[in-house]
């Protein structure tokens, strides 16, 4: 095995690639957006399994599901659920931006794309929270 990779750079040590995501200092916006996508994606995968586990309560019957609904309607739980929606919005819109930029669309305006994606996420999040808590 050679000491350098095909790109001519030294081979990366294990973990370097992963730990490298979190090194935000001195990084360009594209790397920050990439890290944001990975981090929110992992959180959402964790939530997927939690969600599938909770849905088993439906199999157990109406009584179990009623207990789940009581828990879900608690304001603390709603606040946590709103965070989940925020992660979905950020991951979805930032992912869409990454897909467009990755295919060469709007590469020169990537800063504006990122700002727009985060602004729309924040706006939609605020709107959804207001609906969730019955303000509007």
């Amino acid at each position, binding site marked *: 095995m050679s000491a350098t990779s095909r790109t001519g750079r030294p*081979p*990366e*040590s*294990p*973990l*370097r*690639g*992963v730990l*490298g*995501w979190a090194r935000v200092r001195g990084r*360009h*916006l*594209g*790397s920050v957006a*990439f890290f944001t996508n*990975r981090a929110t*994606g*992992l959180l*959402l*995968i964790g939530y*997927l*399994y939690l969600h*599938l586990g909770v*849905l*088993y309560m*439906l*199999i157990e*019957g*109406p009584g179990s*599901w*009623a207990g789940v*609904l009581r828990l*879900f*309607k608690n304001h603390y739980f709603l606040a946590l659920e709103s965070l989940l*929606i925020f992660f*979905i919005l950020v991951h*979805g819109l930032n*992912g*869409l931006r*990454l*897909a467009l*930029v*990755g*295919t060469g669309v709007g*590469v*020169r305006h*990537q*800063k504006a794309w990122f700002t727009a994606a985060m602004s729309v996420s924040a706006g939609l999040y605020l709107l959804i929270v207001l*609906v*969730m808590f019955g303000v509007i």
Partner: protein
Amino acid sequence: MATDLEESVRQPSRSQRGRGGTTAWLLQAVSGVLLIFLLGAHIVAQHFVVRGGLRDYAQVMSYLANPAVLVMEGLFVVVLIWHAMLGLRAVLLDFGFGRRGQALITRGVVVLGAVTAGYSFWLIATLAARG
């Protein structure tokens, strides 16, 4: 300036493509776009249609009795798990494993995805049969 910006944006994509493969990256992007619609429909149907938010047991059964809903939820499960497993694979490949490790990771996410999809379809089918 523009070149620097371009490089900063393209670098992660290249790295991701290099490790995960261009086909995987493309499938990830396509499934991601599909999820915007499918997940959006799922969230609206489960949280914002019924008065008071979430559906109670009887409302869930009535919802799943609709064949169109079953098709949409089934498609949602497939696309979501596909997207999640490709994403998980890309993250794991960032650890910089060798070829054998990469092959093991690919097989591992295929098995995990199949088990997750199997459980999800069992859940949907069992509940739909009760409706």
